[in-house]
């Protein structure tokens, strides 16, 4: 009986409120989406028309196959590239390692479509490299548009994600495990295959899942560089937005198919990784070694080569931002005109990005702390439900969430479409799964007896939370929040669906300038975005005292 009393404290109220928030702002929209997808019949009756249409026209199901091809290829390639990268960065002494790690991070934090646009500038039909090769060597460079381009851009963009996951996993391998393997005669490549890969496999799978979801949901890259090669997010966008014959119900049906697809992959991954899961804790982490000769040279070439490719698009965009422009084309010489134009045309967008981004961030941090606390400390049916519900956005692509929110809140009493608030909500919902995860991880490290000590000393439950638990969580939560912030300001796929002229953000401004062909302004805005990102990351490093990020 006293148990019952104790559980109905202020935390129950907080949990219930957050639960309702999710019911209204996530579950309801997803149900609306589901409903819309099934009402293709005459007079809004239940029918499978949309689904039948989808699977009977190659134009539609072909996009799904395209998405599948892109996503699987990107995931595999990223895993293949990231594993040696992480292994070398952990075990080899690499010159300038600290800077390389920061560069890898920066390269992964920019919106992918900026990479796509930059690669077009470099390798596109009229690209700098293309023209150079053509004019000087008379060599036809391979076509960058379509599948190849998407694969190139997304792989370079997402490999760092798996890399960061793997760096964390490699840190938790105790060097004695490797020494034990060596003492039994397992060395070199065999050691990598027989010992290291199996040990980091659970993390590799987790990272691969994240990359899969990102690649599946990415809208900007295929939109810019895909040309005729249409993937699902592009198709959803076209179906939903296109001014002639945009069809909400059909877009909803495609969304449902994508969610089912993503869910299947998610469950498959969970099934596999549950079988392989174990926990490790390194007393003596692997330390880096100075290698000699060819091995050393190859390792350096691999690391520097990858990072050069990964950072190249951003560098080139930044470079073009300082070029003189005449109308839409770059001319000889340097100037700051592009920046002037960027502030003129994109000033609102910069302001919106900060206002919307920071509001979302405050809510994300507050909710993440509260949710992490209740799901770790106050386990109950309600908090378990909350734990599951908050993770749903993980498998819902951004454009799908955007459509779901629009369809649900485009009429009274909850008329939110067109407001900045709906953008804030979408950012909060999409970002929370990650921030909750990292906050919950911190929460798990705080022993419950610390809180009991506070309570035994007469502090109330709330006082214990604010005086003891929160201050202990805060450093970790803040560093997580900065990463959230960086992700929020580079978000495109949801905001492209939800924005209006008044709530345009920087990524949308960059995107529209690129579409219009105003490359100078786009480059200047992209540079500003990069600078904000870099400053945020520097604050992160300063606050955490770390020189890298492991996920």
């Amino acid at each position, binding site marked *: 009986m*006293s148990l019952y009393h104790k559980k109905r404290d202020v935390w129950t109220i907080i949990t219930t409120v957050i639960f309702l928030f999710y019911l209204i702002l996530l579950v309801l929209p997803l149900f609306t989406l589901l409903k819309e997808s099934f009402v293709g019949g005459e007079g809004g009756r239940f029918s499978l028309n949309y689904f039948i249409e989808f699977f009977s026209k190659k134009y539609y199901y072909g996009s799904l196959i395209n998405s599948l091809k892109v996503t699987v290829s990107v995931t595999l390639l990223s895993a293949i590239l990231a594993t040696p990268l992480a292994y070398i960065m952990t075990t080899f002494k690499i010159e300038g390692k600290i800077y390389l790690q920061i560069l890898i991070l920066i390269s992964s934090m920019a919106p992918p479509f900026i990479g796509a646009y930059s690669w077009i500038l470099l390798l596109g039909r009229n690209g700098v490299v293309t023209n150079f090769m053509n004019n000087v060597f008379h060599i036809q460079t391979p076509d960058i548009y379509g599948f190849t381009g998407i694969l190139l851009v997304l792989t370079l963009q997402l490999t760092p994600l798996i890399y960061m996951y793997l760096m964390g996993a490699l840190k938790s391998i105790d060097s004695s495990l490797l020494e034990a393997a060596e003492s039994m005669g397992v060395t070199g490549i065999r050691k990598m295959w027989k010992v290291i890969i199996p040990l980091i496999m659970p993390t590799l799978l987790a990272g691969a899942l994240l990359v899969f979801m990102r690649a599946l949901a990415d809208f900007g890259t295929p939109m810019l560089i895909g040309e005729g090669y249409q993937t699902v997010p592009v198709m959803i966008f076209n179906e939903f937005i296109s001014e002639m014959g945009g069809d909400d119900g059909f877009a909803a049906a495609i969304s449902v198919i994508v969610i089912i697809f993503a869910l299947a992959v998610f469950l498959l991954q969970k099934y596999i990784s549950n079988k392989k899961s174990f926990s490790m804790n390194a007393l003596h982490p692997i330390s880096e070694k100075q290698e000699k000769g060819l091995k050393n040279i190859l390792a350096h070439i691999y690391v520097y080569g990858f990072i050069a490719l990964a950072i190249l698009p951003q560098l080139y965009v930044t470079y073009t931002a300082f070029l003189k422009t005449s109308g839409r084309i770059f001319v000889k010489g340097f100037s700051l005109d592009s920046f002037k134009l960027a502030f003129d045309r994109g000033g609102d967008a910069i302001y919106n990005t900060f206002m919307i981004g920071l509001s979302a961030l405050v809510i994300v941090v507050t909710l993440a702390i509260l949710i992490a606390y209740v799901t770790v400390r106050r386990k109950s049916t309600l908090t378990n439900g909350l734990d599951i519900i908050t993770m749903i956005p993980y498998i819902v692509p951004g454009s799908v969430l955007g459509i779901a929110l629009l369809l649900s809140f485009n009429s009274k009493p909850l008329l939110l479409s067109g407001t900045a608030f709906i953008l804030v909500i979408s950012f909060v919902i999409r970002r929370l799964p990650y921030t909750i995860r990292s906050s919950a991880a911190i929460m798990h490290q705080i*022993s419950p007896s610390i809180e*009991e*000590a506070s309570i*035994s000393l007469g502090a109330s439950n709330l006082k214990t939370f604010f005086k003891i638990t929160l201050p202990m969580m805060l450093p970790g939560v803040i560093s997580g929040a900065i990463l959230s912030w960086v992700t929020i300001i580079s978000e495109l796929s949801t905001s492209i669906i939800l924005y209006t002229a008044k709530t345009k953000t920087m990524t949308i401004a960059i995107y529209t300038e690129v579409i219009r062909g105003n490359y100078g302004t786009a480059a200047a805005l992209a540079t500003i975005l990069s600078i904000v990102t870099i400053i945020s990351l520097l604050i992160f490093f300063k606050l955490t005292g770390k020189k890298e990020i492991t996920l």
Partner: protein
Amino acid sequence: MSINIKIRDLVKKYNNNTVISSISLDIKQGEFFTLLGPSGCGKTTLLRMIAGFNSIEGGQIYFNDEVINDKSPQNRNIGMVFQNYAIFPHLNVKQNVAFGLTNRKIPKPEIESRVDKILQTVQIGDFKDRLPENLSGGQQQRVALARAIVIEPDVLLMDEPLSNLDAKLRVDMRNAIKEIQKEVGITTVYVTHDQEEAMAVSDRIAVMNSGVIQHIGTPQNIYHRPANVFVATFIGRTNIIERELSIINGKTVLKLDENYQVEMDKIVPTNKEVNQLPVKVSIRPEEFVITDSSDGMSAIVISNMFLGVNTHYIVRLSNGEQVEITQESSLDEILDPGTKICLKVKKEKINLFDYESEMNITEGVVNDVALS
């Protein structure tokens, strides 16, 4: 301000799994009372019920005459020391110790003086501005103790406070805890699985197993006259051998071997009708005596182990049973394996248990479980 604790028919259930079925006991004012038992016996559960961190599914806990079942831990006025110390890592030593006082709306100057005084008592006054990460295990332990007693709690609860310390420090700290507890005179409930530690610090010990209290008594009583076979084997080392107790001519005789029997005059009268009673006999290693005379149990040394003060032997009795014996080390040669020896027992020290109930049938058992 120090109080007595009365526990009546206390029940703890996790869902349908009963962990503590019905415990009753009395803890006296100012007493150092220890809950001792193997891991999983329910001792920490019981302590946390007294603290208020575990719910109570039945029975009552009284502080003096007040039932505190439904009082929240904040209002029970307890001081608690945790196994992992639970020092607040973001507060320095002084802030940690003052934390409880600030919750009690005590004026600042008084907080200052009380914190200073207690830090002197636990001898860490020099570290008061340090953060916990800069303290050793023993120092953190002292902070935890100071923080718990500075609020002048009615009861001090300690959950395996020494188990994270190394062996030498553990001995130092247990002496310190005992001294400080005496000085402050506070009713203390202490949980440990280490029987030596329990005997060293406690006024009385409750030995628990499977959620049931087996024996409550002073350390000496529990060691010398354990209430049942479990207590005999859990506290110290002992040999349990099965024998028969016969009543011959009104005398109670324990036959240990064909040519060695001892008269047991301090047996609680059991069933007088039978004159043959199967018993379990607990003989501690030091309760054997190696004798030169031939009227003892014959045995053969299997192995020996020299441990400084004592020398241990494993020997085989004539019926094949193996027992462990301890002798004070002498300057003579250690007995080699294969040596034939003759053994007697210190009959006033050994304990006899009923074969079925495993309860001690020797006179002199003091078990406060029965009283309460």
